[in-house]
């Protein structure tokens, strides 16, 4: 077997759907029917999962560290809010796509700034862009409602058929459908030759350029796509909560997002989804213990995760499941340790 076809074989094997993945999505769907009283928090988790998946695309696959991903979330949120408030586009799905595109345009524009420079410059520039947008949203309060946020948003039924109900049932399944469709797209993208080239860039940009990968163009493309995803997550936020306020741009949002990904692991798409569930549960737990100071415990979790080491932590977490799989199926572990991002 030649080297080229060997690589293709492994890439294809990786891209195939595993039973575990099917089970994962079935469980998520089942949650929608099992816990009818928990729609609001489950919708929240789905939104966060989509947002985290967006960061995973650039951090886990392309290795771009961003401290200002909330910028795109915020643009999506305000775009969806304004579209609905002024009745420009009443149909939620269409508004969602338009809001995503708005964030995408911003992502494309700022990607040229981000691909310049090293990690440190990127951190600063992404942080700066998010802060800049927050300042802008505060400044143009006649459009954005300033610190009060956009109020009185009324969502029209989805496709003109399914109205948003007050228990959040429609919102949950709507969010789930959006997440699943976008997940399929992301899955297709990261397993395509394009996605493989991104990994090459992440591992070694110089070498990737040497074998003929247009590094900058690939980075711009994935950054733009990630911005689209984040914009959609933001738009979902506005559509399911009927509110958009300045805190969509907040630094804490970007920082929490990092924590979500770190908990779940980067570079295999499910990290954001699992991380979102764990993060929200931790947050709930901490805020029942100490309502005002939960941030302390979140901070502690971050510090401990970094000190212990992310890879070691993931090995520990996966130890028991892998042991069971090995015992039952009698073969090598199927749940792999996610790739490192160093």
């Amino acid at each position, binding site marked *: 077997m030649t080297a080229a076809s060997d690589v293709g074989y492994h890439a294809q094997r990786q891209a195939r759907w595993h039973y575990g993945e099917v089970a994962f999505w079935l469980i998520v769907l089942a949650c929608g029917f099992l816990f009818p009283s928990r729609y609001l928090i489950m919708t929240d988790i789905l939104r966060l999962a989509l947002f985290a998946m967006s960061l995973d695309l650039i*951090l886990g696959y392309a290795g771009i560290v961003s401290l200002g991903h909330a910028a795109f979330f915020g643009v999506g949120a305000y775009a969806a809010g304004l579209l609905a408030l002024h009745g420009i586009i009443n149909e939620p799905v269409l508004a969602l796509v338009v809001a995503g595109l708005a964030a995408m345009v911003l992502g494309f524009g700022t990607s040229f700034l981000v691909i310049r420079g090293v990690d440190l410059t990127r951190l600063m520039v992404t942080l700066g862009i998010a802060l800049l947008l927050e300042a802008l949203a505060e*400044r143009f309060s006649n459009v954005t409602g300033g610190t009060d946020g956009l109020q009185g948003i009324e969502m029209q039924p989805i496709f003109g058929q399914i109205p948003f109900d007050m228990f959040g049932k429609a919102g949950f399944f709507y969010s789930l459908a959006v997440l699943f469709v976008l997940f399929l797209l992301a899955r297709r993208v990261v397993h395509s030759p394009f996605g493989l080239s991104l990994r090459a860039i992440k591992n070694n940009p110089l070498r990737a350029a040497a074998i003929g990968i247009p590094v900058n163009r690939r980075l711009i493309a994935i950054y733009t796509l990630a911005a689209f995803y984040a914009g959609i997550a933001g738009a979902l936020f506005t559509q399911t909560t009927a509110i958009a306020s300045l805190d969509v741009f907040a630094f804490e949002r970007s920082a929490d997002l990092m924590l979500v990904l770190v908990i779940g692991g980067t570079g295999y798409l499910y990290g954001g989804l699992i991380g979102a569930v764990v993060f929200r549960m931790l947050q709930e737990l901490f805020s029942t213990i100490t309502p005002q100071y939960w941030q302390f415990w979140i901070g502690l979790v971050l510090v401990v995760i970094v000190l212990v080491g992310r890879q070691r932590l993931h090995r520990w977490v996966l130890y028991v499941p892998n042991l069971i799989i090995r015992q039952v199926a009698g073969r090598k572990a199927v749940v792999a340790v996610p790739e490192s991002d160093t």
Partner: protein
Amino acid sequence: MTAILTNLFDGVAYGMLLFVLACGLAVTLGLMNFVNLAHGAFAMAGGYVCMVLVNRMGWPFFAALPLAFVSAAAIGIVLERSLYRHLYTRSHLDQVLFTIGLTFMSVAAVDYIQGSSRVFINLPAALQGQFDVFGIGIGRYRLMIIVICGLLTIGLQMVLAKTRFGSRLRAAVDDPRAASGLGINVPQVFAFTFAFGCGLAGLGGALSAEILGLDPYFPLKFMIYFLIVVTVGGSSSITGPFLASLLLGIGDVAGKYYVPKMGPFVIYTMMIVILIWRPNGLFGRTAAR
């Protein structure tokens, strides 16, 4: 005309303050290549120590300032020896996550101990009010800041350029391996420098309570300002961050005075433009390592 000069004066005081707050970060971020987003937490610690000493225990303000320095430096050295040390060789992502975690913890802890409202330090009467020089209003407190920070800056420059420790530090930064080969205890030099930078931040925090406002969210609110000073100033010497602080201070005060509606917009735009134009900072060289 006098309004412009008064603004300039305020801007210089503000910039000097920013320099004292951020120059410790210039060393850790610029020279040691460690992304320390928790730098503001040390400043906040110094500020709160000073506040407790002056307001609750009745210490004189000028006696509390050195203690603010010492306590922040002590916290710095403890954290450096126990936690930071392990992260010098890790990726920037790990460093960012770690220091964000620390920042969150410090915010919540101070909120828990001291409450979330803004605190003020009782100033001695000699520092309050302002006097006129040729019609230019000069705040006594701001004048004191300029004097203290100016002296500190000169002192720092002298230490870095003239003393044995200064040359050791520069050697350790330029090439840690060669430096340790020459018998310089590089980790010790870094630890000492880190603690000293934290102490300066603590002093800056104590001084800034009057001007910037001191509350538990201080580390998050001013994080971006410290980062701007360092990234714009570059890391080749302390003159770079110093000039950057002055520029930022004057720009921010003038921006707030003349175009109040644009708010912090001017500063962020300036930062992004400068970073795009000169990724290593205005006065920088190519980054170490």
